[in-house]
């Protein structure tokens, strides 16, 4: 099943013989891709397979070493992103790529401003015109008119993602490329996006779509091309394949093989949390964002925080980490009162956090992968607590590299050069490295491939099984429920409900019931 015979129309977008070498790695090796009109074409592959590199080549951001991009049969001038945009290619990049200083509206229209004439020249931006053009589209993704005028730096990761989606949809592109657009997105918004993708397909737009959520493919994507280690493995029609087959293509093994399969999950489900309370937070209040939140986390327990975007989940854990100042409230760790002055103090006390926005808050782009792991606790790689041993540092990084399957030619290479999913794994490694008493995960598996996701889940469970405690934020309710012992539901900064005994309930086959319980609480609970 080599060719995509499900698509009869001639190819709109074609990549021919694309090869790209970076310092130290070959990202793409003689790759072909062909997308027809009105086709949703999924790009699949493990972290570091080369998907984003191919996309940035199609979008004109990166120059290939060899190969050409054809649009409607004619080669695309390789003169940068502007040419690609002008030819009708719109891209949502994997990493948030908005300009913090500009408002949402200016970001959406950046490079494609609607202008009015001043002195006969199209110099002035017509902000009213721009607002009119995107108002409805923005509203569909939960962006209000006043938010359009707000600088992007004031939004959280979720909202930024929504703005990027609007930015890509606003211009009736001929080819729309989406690199993990649903990463960290709420279920509702996810469905809105899928709706838009379908209607674009109706209108004959070609879509290239990268995702690690294989279940999303079915019923939506037409074709899937699978990459592995910079090579195209195969292109298959989605309707005639299965998730298992795709996983096999991506990783060369069966899905049961990884992460010990269900064994670890079963083990996890049966372990109940200990009785000793590790973290005791009382009446946490921070302005109007966090209101009177109290929570306990027991030894070996994973507490999930659920809620819609802006419910204040991130805000709660930021105050625990000492990143934002509390208005009032107390936190005890192992019975000792924590001073929430700084993140340094929090790390020293035994807390650690995987932040939600890996590019802005997570990676130290100029530093090596090894340093990005060890930075949270340099004493582990230091001799006499002071003298850093490059060897120990590398050994530490290597340990996590094998454990999490971080794909990099060398742990001493800049982390900025790693693929998004691999960067995320490094951030997780950084937190595990501090051997914390309480580990906070804010969207820990965003951008991580299926295989690594299982690995991370196993890690989280093992960590809890060995007596560690965790707070987990995940916008995917399924993921939240699979990992948590107990879920607190937040709304408008308040705890509006709690669902306990989740492992037992799942074991009893009541997954659907608790899922809808959590969703109902998130949507309805509390005053607005």
């Amino acid at each position, binding site marked *: 099943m080599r060719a995509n015979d499900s698509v009869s129309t001639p190819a709109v977008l074609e990549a021919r013989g694309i090869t790209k070498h970076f310092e130290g790695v070959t990202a793409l090796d003689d790759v072909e891709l062909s997308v027809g009109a009105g086709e949703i074409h999924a790009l699949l592959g493990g972290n570091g397979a080369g998907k984003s590199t191919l996309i940035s080549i199609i979008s004109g951001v990166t120059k290939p070493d060899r190969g050409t991009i054809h649009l409607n049969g004619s080669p695309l001038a390789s003169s940068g992103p502007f040419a690609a945009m002008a030819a009708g290619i719109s891209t949502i990049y994997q990493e948030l790529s908005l300009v913090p200083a500009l408002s949402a509206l*200016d970001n959406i229209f*950046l*490079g*494609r401003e609607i202008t009015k004439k001043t002195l006969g020249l199209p110099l002035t931006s017509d902000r009213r015109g721009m607002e009119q053009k995107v108002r409805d589209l923005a509203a569909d993704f939960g962006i209000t008119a*006043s938010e359009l005028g*707000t600088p992007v730096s*004031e939004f959280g990761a979720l909202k930024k993602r929504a703005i990027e989606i609007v930015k890509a949809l606003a211009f009736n592109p001929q080819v729309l490329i989406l690199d993990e657009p649903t990463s960290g997105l709420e279920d509702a918004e996810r469905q809105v996006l899928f709706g838009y993708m379908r209607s674009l397909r109706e209108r004959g737009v070609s879509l290239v779509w990268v995702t690690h959520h294989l279940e999303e493919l079915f019923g939506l994507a037409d074709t899937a091309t699978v990459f592995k280690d910079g090579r195209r493995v195969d292109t298959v029609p989605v309707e005639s394949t299965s998730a298992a087959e795709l996983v096999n293509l991506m990783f060369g093994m069966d899905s049961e093989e990884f992460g010990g399969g269900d064994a670890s999950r079963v083990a996890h489900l049966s372990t109940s949390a200990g009785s000793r309370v590790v973290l005791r937070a009382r009446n946490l209040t921070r302005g109007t*964002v966090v209101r009177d939140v109290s929570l306990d986390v027991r030894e070996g327990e994973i507490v999930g925080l659920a809620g819609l975007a802006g419910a*204040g989940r991130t805000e709660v854990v930021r105050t625990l980490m000492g990143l934002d100042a509390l208005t009032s409230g107390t936190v005890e760790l192992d019975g000792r009162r924590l001073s929430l002055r700084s993140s340094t103090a929090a790390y020293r006390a035994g807390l650690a956090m995987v932040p939600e926005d890996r590019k802005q808050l997570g990676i130290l782009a100029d530093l090596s992968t090894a340093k990005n792991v060890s930075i949270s606790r340099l004493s582990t790689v230091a001799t006499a607590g002071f003298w850093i041993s490059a060897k120990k540092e590398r050994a530490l990084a290597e340990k996590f590299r094998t454990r999490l399957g971080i794909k990099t030619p060398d742990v001493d290479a800049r982390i900025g050069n790693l693929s998004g999913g691999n960067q995320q794994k490094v951030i997780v490694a950084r937190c595990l490295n501090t051997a914390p008493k309480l580990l906070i995960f804010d969207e820990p598996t965003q951008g991580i491939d299926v295989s690594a996701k299982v690995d991370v889940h196993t890690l989280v469970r093992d960590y809890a099984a060995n007596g560690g405690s965790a707070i987990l934020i995940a916008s995917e309710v399924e993921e939240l429920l699979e990992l948590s012992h107990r879920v607190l539901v937040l709304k408008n900064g308040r705890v509006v409900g709690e669902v306990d005994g989740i492992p037992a309930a799942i074991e009893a086959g009541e997954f659907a019931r608790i899922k809808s319980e959590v969703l109902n609480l998130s949507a309805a609970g509390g005053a607005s």
Partner: protein
Amino acid sequence: MMKSRTLDIATVSRNAWERLVVDPTLGVISLLVIFSLIAAFAFPVFYAGNNIYNLVGSSITVMILAIGMTIVLISGGIDLSVGAVMALCAGTAASVVKLGAPLWVAFLCALLVGVIAGLMNGFLVTRVGLPDFIGTLAMLGLASGVLYIATQGVPIIGYMTSEYYVIGGLEPLVGPVTLPMVVALVLALSAGWLLSRTRLGTHFFAVGSNAVAARQSGVSVRWVKTQAYVISGVCAAIAGVILAGRNNNVPADLGTGYEIQAISAAIIGGASLMGGRGRVLGAVLGSLTLALAINIINLAGVPSSFQKIVIGAILLLAVIANYLSELARNAALRRRAKRDSQASSLERTKKEI
């Protein structure tokens, strides 16, 4: 940590008074007012004669340079060459007038020199790939070297026609208002308009705030940065033409030290070396603050050995005032959010560092 958010005011706040209260330049403005009041009580001469106009007049050169510098800083660069380019343009204008050419020709020649200098800065930074600091430092060396060689260190004189007295602001236009003041006003308004209302203005912010994202959106980072340097060069040319008049002669070292003053004025006004931030009004107020500091020192007869400390202290005060006004602003925004009983986006803003 201070973090100025320049773009939200106009939009977040719909009410005029509130908009004023939350304006980030309020700090500098109130500092100026307080200083002026103190000065008025302590030194009645402060309002004597044309002191205020003299003060404004003396700030014009730095102000014009600071406007250009603000644009360069917003787009993520820094222009160390402004002083030297300004001197070279002053020399060009003076020499051309001396040759007997009409003033507008002299002005165009100076402008041309400024534009070329800006293009060269842009070339060195965006094409050769030099760091902004080094590229423009080299341009500084080049421009001032050319002026030294051309003049052999002897100041250019003998170009002061009666029209040139008007250009230099030595002959007022109406009452105490001089041509340079009008020019500075027009420049400030155009630059403000450019930054807030045009595509190019948006692109300056985009490139300085996140060059990668700007490039991905199809903005030509190189060309935008080059244009910022060209604007700075044009400002330097205008400042040079004026300063040549005000100064009555053009010594080869005319521009020495102006770059630091222009950068200081821009930063007092809220611009940042890290790019993506800055306001034209801030640059104007920043240069007025610098001039006011000198004026007060002069009026108070501060012994020269204390002057550096006093100027340093005034700089500090200006920036702290800025900071306090920002705190006040945030508090005001929060109050409003509470009133609307809605979580304010500002509170959610991660107060980093």
